[in-house]
């Protein structure tokens, strides 16, 4: 028997496959038994009620999608009363994604959500920090470090920091998150993008811009996962465009300890159990005892020295 279990800090997951925040909910239990997953990750919540963004909230772009859902949230009360109890019926660890517009509100929510039944907190620091210039916390190392320190003080649960691809400073941000107290890095959230309907000349999203997710994001997220695994010592959880077991292997080899599957579930709702089965077969076929033996096995010695002048950098 091959071993699919992975460790994210002190938390052991029975396999490295979990859903990405915002692309998963209780509703998926209509399609397959959610107990098969490595972890359950809930949609980002905010402390208070939020309506979310105007529609249309999604649109299609070449082989991928944009979304600007805008975090509709029923608030912390509803979440503790309704959502957490739902997931209690499963053995699978529950990871709760939270966000806030200011570091203090964020930290308050972090402590409020540190309740029984929650195994880790994913902090979505890819959201705007309205106390500075409205840029996401995770765009700069300094704001990442500051917010992570506050969040770290607010809970004793494992903290997973979810990074944004909308930055030119991925390694610095990764190190800042680690130094600020993150137990793992989730790499990455969606990339800011836009589409316009040439007939109506209106943006295809009600919110003007939105986040790119799906296959187009994969090579970018993979690069970030690799950069983060090199820059930080804490585990990296890859996320972005993953839709097959081969994609998962690519992230594991690059240095990720586990992965999240997002948009692919919209196209094929049973993709996560399918990936888990394929991963198992792959390990068996290749005689690899544990999925952990794959992590970070990328052969990059020759190339590391070779990263030189390019058309585009870094």
């Amino acid at each position, binding site marked *: 028997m091959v071993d699919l279990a992975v460790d994210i800090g002190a938390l052991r997951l029975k396999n490295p496959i979990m859903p990405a925040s915002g*692309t998963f909910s209780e509703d998926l239990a209509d399609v397959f038994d959610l107990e098969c997953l490595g972890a359950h990750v809930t949609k980002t919540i905010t402390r208070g009620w939020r309506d979310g963004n105007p529609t249309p*909230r999604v649109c*299609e772009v070449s082989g991928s*999608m944009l979304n600007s859902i805008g975090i509709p949230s029923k608030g912390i009360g509803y979440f503790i009363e309704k959502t957490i109890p739902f997931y209690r019926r499963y053995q699978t660890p529950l990871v709760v994604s939270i966000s806030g517009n200011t570091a203090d509100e964020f930290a308050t929510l972090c402590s409020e959500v540190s309740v029984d039944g929650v195994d880790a907190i994913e902090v979505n620091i890819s959201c705007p920090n309205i106390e500075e210039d409205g840029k996401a916390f995770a765009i700069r190392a300094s704001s990442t470090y500051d917010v992570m320190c506050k969040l770290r003080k607010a809970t004793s649960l494992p903290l997973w920091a979810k990074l944004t691809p909308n930055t030119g400073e991925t390694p610095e941000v990764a190190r800042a998150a680690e130094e600020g107290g993150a137990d793992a890095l989730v790499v990455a959230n969606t990339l800011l993008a836009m589409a316009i309907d040439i007939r109506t000349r209106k943006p295809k999203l009600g919110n003007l811009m939105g986040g790119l997710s799906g296959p187009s994001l994969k090579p970018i997220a993979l690069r970030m996962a690799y950069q983060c695994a090199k820059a930080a010592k804490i585990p990296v959880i890859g996320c972005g465009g993953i839709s097959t077991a081969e994609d998962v292997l690519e992230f594991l080899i690059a240095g990720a300890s586990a992965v999240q599957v997002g948009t692919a579930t919209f*196209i*094929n*709702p049973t993709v996560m159990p399918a990936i888990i089965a394929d991963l198992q077969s792959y390990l068996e076929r290749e005689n690899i005892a544990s999925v952990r033996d794959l992590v970070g096995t990328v052969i990059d010695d020759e190339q590391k020295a070779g990263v030189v002048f390019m058309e585009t950098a870094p």
Partner: protein
Amino acid sequence: MLHAERTIPQIPSVFERDLPVVSNDPVNGEYMRLVLRAPADLLEQCRAGQFFHLLCPAIGGETPYLRRPMSIYGFYPEREELHFLYKVTGEGTRALFHLGPGDSLNVLGPLGQGFRIEADWQRLVLVARGVGLATLAPLALEAQRLGRSLTAICSARNPEVLMSTDYFRDLGANVITVTDSEGTAGVDNIERIIEGLVADRGVDAFYTCGSNRLLRLLQALGERHGIPGEIALEQQMACGLGMCHCCVRPFRKNERLVNLRVCREGPVFDMQEAMPW
């Protein structure tokens, strides 16, 4: 009145399946009927007003990415057939158009909440136009099964593109046709027709879908005569299951506007709570 919050079953109730194509033929100049072979256990889960989320194939140079929602036009467990009626509008439906016998199509469903027919709703009236017929047609089947009387007001641009009138008649419905070309499809005329029905034999419930004009009319008629109604609504979808919250529309509920998911709380909603757009 909104549908009660659904409790989530422990046993999967939504199917994700590749189904063989039986046929895919034009119904008139604008619409296509797609017939899939489906197992009886799947078809027995279906209800009028529900939909499937179709993974349109990458054929004919089309590369649709997201699934496309499509109402159940007919479901026949005895014949093992699942029917859709669709209009070719963009990339996804153009891809569907290329399907033929020998191909298969991946479907996800049945999804969403179907039409309610309360025990005391005996005299039903549906008002349908264009592709809205796809959604309302199976209601006729269900009305017949339940022994309710149904009047179907079918609207179209001209008599040539009127669809499903024979289908409704065969199921014992009273069919009234109105068309733009004959000048009978205006809101005023439909209002006159419905007022006639209310005065004549009485109406217990309205059903419609899609059109803003018809929604306003039926909301007014419903309020005027205290007649409940249901409307099937559309919104762009990603997951189709309730996870992504992209498909919301606003509804009036206890003096407040709340966003509800068309894929999960809908696509069928209480007509008075729906908001014209």
